C-alpha cells in the first residue's frame, strides 16, 4: 500500500512534504500543480503517486506562475487545489498572485512555498513570507510533522471561509525531515467542477473572476482579513508553553520552535523561559499577542531568515505599549540572532544563553583539544558533478573551444546541477562567471553580446538545462534573436530535471501521471524563432568541441547547440556501465607525462583517482559510471575502454 493512503488513526513516518500532501488529501484535494525545486518537489511527486486512486489531477507545470494559474482554474470551478513551489518560485508566480488575490477564489486554494534558509540547495535564501504581507494573504507555518499535515488541511478550510488564497510556508528542515504523523480520515466524496460567471461583478462566487473594480474589491478583501484575524485568535495551532511569568518570552514559528525547545533543554531553562509558538504568522492575532507579550519584560523572536515576525510583533507591541508596557526586544535587529543563514539548536541556545547568562555544556577541554588535532587532518569534500555526468563532458568541451578560440570567451550560467560549474571553479573549469535565476543566463548573454560597441569583444555563451529552457529561457532567447545578439546558446539536455529527482518536463513524452503526452522539441522551438541549431553528444569530445569552436568563430545572432546525454543517475543509466574503463599502467606516464596530470588535476572525475604510491592514474571501479569520456582526454591514450554491461 502507498503510505500516503495509510488508514485513519495509523501512525506513519512522513517526510514533511508527504505530511503536507496527506493533509491536502484529507482536505479533499482535487488538483495539484507545481514546478520542481528543492525542497518542495516531494509534495507533487507523492501526490502523483496516488492520483489514480484518489481521482486527482496532478501536473508538473512549465513554471510556477502557470502552476498557480492551473490550480486557480480548479478553485474557480469550486474544487480544492494546491500549487507547490520553492521560495523563489513564488517570485515567478507573484504577478498572477497579486491579481488572483484581488479577484478572490472559490474552492479552497493553497499556495505551498517550501523555502531554503541557508541555501542548502539553492542559490538564494529568499523569503516569501513578505509576499503574505505585501499581497495581503494569510500565512501559516507548521512547526512539526503532525502540524504540517493538520495545518495544510485547515488551510483549505480557511481559504474557503474567506474565499481567497492561503499560503503555507515550510522550510528545508521541515520539508526534508521526517517524523511521526497520526493520519485522519480520507474523504470519500468528491466535488464536481462548475464554473459560474454571469452573476454581479462584486460577487466573487457567481460573477466574473476579475480584479476590477480594483479599489472596491481591495476594500472587500481587507474586510475579509478581519475574519482571518478573528479565526487566528482562536486557532489551536498557536500555543504558549512555559511558566506563567517567564523571565524571557520567546516568540517563534516553523521548525525554529523545535530548535527553541531543544535549546531550552540544553540550557536547563525550561522553567524560566516561555515559548509562544505561532502557526498563523500573518496577519498576527493582536489579542493573543497582547495576552502573551504581557507575560515578560524581555522578548526574543526566533525565526529564519529575515526579521519578518519580529517586525510584525514589534508593530503590534508598540500599538499596545500603553497596556502592556515597554518591552525589550531581542532578535535579528539587535544582532542576538543572525539575519542570514539558517538557525539550529546551538545558535538558538547561544542566543538564549546570552540573554539569560547561561552557557551551553561542552565536552571537557582535553576532548576538544583532540577534536582540534583531528580536524586538521580532515580534507574538505567539495561538491562536484557525479562520475559519468554529461555536464563535466560539456564543460570540458566548452573549455576546449574557449582555449582554441583564444579570445577569452565565457559562459553565463543558469539553474540546475550545472550551476555547480559556477560554484566551484574546478568543476566548470573556470568558464562560467555568472549565475542568477532561472533563465537569466540567456538574458545576460544577450546583454553582454550587445557591448562590443563599448569594447567588450569576447565570445558570449549561455547554458541552460532542458527543464530550465521551458521554464524561463524562451523569452530571453527570442529577445536575443530579435535584437541580433551574437550568442552561442548551449542546452544541456540530460533528459529530465536531474537535480530535483527526474521529474518530467515539456520536452519528454510523459507526464507527472505517467501518461503519454506530446513532447515539445527544443530544437523545433529554436528553429521556429529563426536560430541556427545543431545537436551533439557531449561524450563525443572531438565532434562537440568542433561545433562549438565553429560557432564561436561565426558571426550571426543566436546559435544553438543542444548537447544530449542522459544524467548519470537517471533510472535508465543507474548501475549500468556503457564501458569498462581502466588505466593501462604501462602507458600512463604519471608525473613524467607532460600533461600536468590532465586526468586527475584538471578533468577531475571523482572516479578517476591517483595512486600516489605508484604515481599512476587509477579508475575506482566502484565509483566509475563507465561513460568513457576520460578515454578521449588522455594524451597518452593510457585510459582504455571495453564494452560494459549496458
Amino acid at each position, binding site marked *: 500500500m502507498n503510505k500516503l493512503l495509510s488508514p485513519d488513526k495509523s501512525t506513519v513516518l512522513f517526510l514533511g512534504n508527504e505530511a503536507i500532501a496527506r493533509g491536502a488529501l484529507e482536505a479533499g484535494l482535487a488538483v495539484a500543480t507545481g514546478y520542481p525545486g528543492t525542497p518542495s518537489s516531494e509534495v507533487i511527486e507523492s501526490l502523483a503517486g496516488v492520483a489514480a486512486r484518489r481521482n486527482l489531477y496532478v501536473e508538473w507545470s512549465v513554471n510556477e506562475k502557470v502552476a498557480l494559474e492551473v490550480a486557480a482554474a480548479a478553485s474557480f470551478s469550486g474544487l480544492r487545489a494546491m500549487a507547490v513551489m520553492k521560495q523563489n518560485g513564488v517570485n515567478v508566480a507573484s504577478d498572477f498572485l497579486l491579481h488572483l488575490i484581488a479577484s478572490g477564489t472559490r474552492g479552497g486554494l493553497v499556495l505551498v512555498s517550501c523555502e531554503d534558509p541557508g541555501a542548502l540547495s539553492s542559490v538564494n535564501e529568499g523569503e516569501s513570507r513578505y509576499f503574505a504581507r505585501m499581497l495581503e494573504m494569510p500565512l501559516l507555518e507548521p512547526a512539526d510533522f503532525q502540524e504540517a499535515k493538520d495545518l495544510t488541511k485547515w488551510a483549505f478550510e480557511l481559504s474557503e471561509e474567506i474565499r481567497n488564497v492561503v499560503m503555507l510556508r515550510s522550510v528545508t528542515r521541515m520539508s526534508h525531515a521526517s517524523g511521526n504523523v497520526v493520519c485522519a480520515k480520507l474523504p470519500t466524496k468528491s466535488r464536481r467542477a462548475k464554473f459560474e460567471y454571469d452573476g454581479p461583478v462584486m460577487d466573487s462566487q457567481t460573477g466574473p473572476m476579475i480584479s476590477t473594480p480594483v479599489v472596491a474589491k481591495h476594500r472587500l478583501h481587507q474586510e475579509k482579513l478581519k475574519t482571518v484575524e478573528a479565526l487566528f485568535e482562536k486557532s489551536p495551532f498557536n500555543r504558549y508553553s512555559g511558566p506563567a511569568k517567564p523571565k524571557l518570552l520567546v516568540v517563534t514559528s516553523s521548525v525554529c520552535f523545535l530548535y527553541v525547545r531543544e535549546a531550552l533543554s540544553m540550557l536547563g531553562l525550561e522553567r524560566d523561559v516561555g515559548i509562544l509558538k505561532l502557526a498563523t504568522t500573518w496577519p498576527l492575532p493582536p489579542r493573543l499577542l497582547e495576552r502573551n507579550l504581557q507575560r515578560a519584560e524581555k522578548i526574543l523572536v526566533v525565526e529564519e531568515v529575515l526579521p519578518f515576525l519580529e517586525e510584525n510583533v514589534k508593530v503590534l507591541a508598540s500599538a499596545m505599549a500603553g497596556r502592556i508596557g515597554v518591552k525589550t526586544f531581542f532578535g535579528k535587529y539587535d544582532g542576538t540572532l543572525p539575519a542570514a543563514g539558517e538557525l539550529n539548536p546551538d545558535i538558538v541556545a547561544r542566543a538564549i544563553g546570552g540573554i539569560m547568562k547561561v552557557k551551553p555544556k561542552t565536552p571537557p577541554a582535553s576532548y576538544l583539544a583532540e577534536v582540534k588535532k583531528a580536524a586538521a587532518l580532515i*580534507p574538505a569534500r567539495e561538491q*562536484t558533478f557525479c562520475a559519468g555526468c554529461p555536464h563535466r563532458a560539456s564543460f570540458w568541451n566548452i573549455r576546449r573551444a574557449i582555449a582554441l578560440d583564444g579570445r577569452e570567451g565565457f559562459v553565463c550560467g543558469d539553474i540546475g546541477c550545472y550551476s555547480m560549474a559556477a560554484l566551484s571553479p574546478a568543476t566548470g573549469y573556470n568558464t562560467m562567471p555568472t549565475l542568477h535565476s532561472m533563465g537569466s543566463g540567456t538574458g545576460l548573454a544577450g546583454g553582454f553580446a550587445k557591448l562590443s560597441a563599448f569594447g567588450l569583444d569576447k565570445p558570449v555563451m549561455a547554458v541552460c538545462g532542458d527543464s530550465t529552457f521551458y521554464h524561463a529561457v524562451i523569452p530571453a532567447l527570442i529577445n536575443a534573436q530579435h535584437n541580433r545578439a551574437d550568442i552561442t546558446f548551449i542546452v544541456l539536455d540530460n533528459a529530465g530535471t536531474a537535480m530535483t529527482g527526474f521529474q518530467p518536463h515539456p520536452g519528454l513524452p510523459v507526464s507527472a501521471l505517467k501518461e503519454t503526452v506530446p513532447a515539445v522539441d527544443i530544437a523545433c522551438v529554436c528553429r521556429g524563432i529563426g536560430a541556427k541549431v545543431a545537436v551533439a553528444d557531449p561524450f563525443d569530445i572531438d565532434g562537440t568541441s568542433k561545433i562549438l569552436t565553429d560557432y564561436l568563430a561565426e558571426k550571426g545572432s543566436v546559435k544553438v547547440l543542444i548537447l544530449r546525454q542522459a544524467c548519470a543517475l537517471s533510472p535508465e543509466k543507474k548501475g549500468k556501465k556503457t564501458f569498462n574503463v581502466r588505466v593501462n599502467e604501462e602507458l600512463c606516464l604519471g608525473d613524467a607525462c607532460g600533461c600536468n596530470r590532465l586526468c*586527475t588535476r584538471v578533468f577531475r572525475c571523482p572516479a578517476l583517482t591517483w595512486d600516489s604510491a605508484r604515481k599512476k592514474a587509477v579508475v575506482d571501479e566502484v565509483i566509475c559510471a563507465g561513460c568513457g569520456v576520460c578515454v578521449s582526454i588522455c594524451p597518452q591514450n593510457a585510459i582504455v575502454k571495453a564494452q560494459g554491461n549496458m
Partner: protein
Amino acid sequence: MKKRKPAKTLNLILTGVGGQGNVMASRVLAGMLVDAGYVVTIGETFGMSQRGGSVMSHLRVSPDEVKSPQIPAWGADVIVALEPLEALRVLGVYGNPDVCVLSNTRPVYPIGVITGELGYPSREIIMEKFSLLAASAWMIDATDAGVRLGNPVLSNIVMIGALAETGLLPFNRGMFAKEIKKTLPPDKLSLNMKAFDEGRAMIRQESVALKNL
C-alpha cells in the same frame, strides 16, 4: 557490549558521501523504530548536497516527543559512517567521550585529494582518532562485502546489519525483514537479508571492538 533502550532521546548520525544510500538507510532504521512505538525524527538534506559532497542524516529516537531535526553540537550517541573520513568529520562537531562509532573502511576520495592538493589520513590514523574520540568503535569492510554480494550500494544494508549486532539501537533481524518488505520488491529481499547477515557476522568476528569500554 552495551544494550541501549532509549528512555531518553537517542541521537544517531548516519553519514557518508552522496550516492552511498544514506537516505535509504536512515528511512529503514526510522521505519522500524516508528513501528516499535518510538517517536522518530529524521533530519536530512538532499538535493545539491548529494552531488559528491558529504551527507548526513540525523536520526532522533525519543520515547515521547518530536525533536529538532538537527542534533545539537557534541550531541551524538551513535555515529554510523559509510565512509571513514566522514565519521571523523562528524566526530569533530557531534562527538563526545560517550559516543560509539561504526564505520565502513572504504575511502571515497574527495576531489582535492585526487588532485593531490589535500591529503587523506591513513586507515591507522583514522582508527587512532576513533579510539581517542569515541567510547567504542568498529570498522568493517562493508563495501567489499557489498561488492562480493554483487552491488557496492548494498554496503548500507551491511552497515545496518552490523549496527543491529552492536545492540546500540533497539532493533533486530525480524524487524528489519518486516521493514524492507514494505518497500523492496520480493526478488530483492533475500539479497538484502544476506547483506544484513553479512554485517552482523562482521561485528561478531571483530570480537573485540577497537575500544569497547
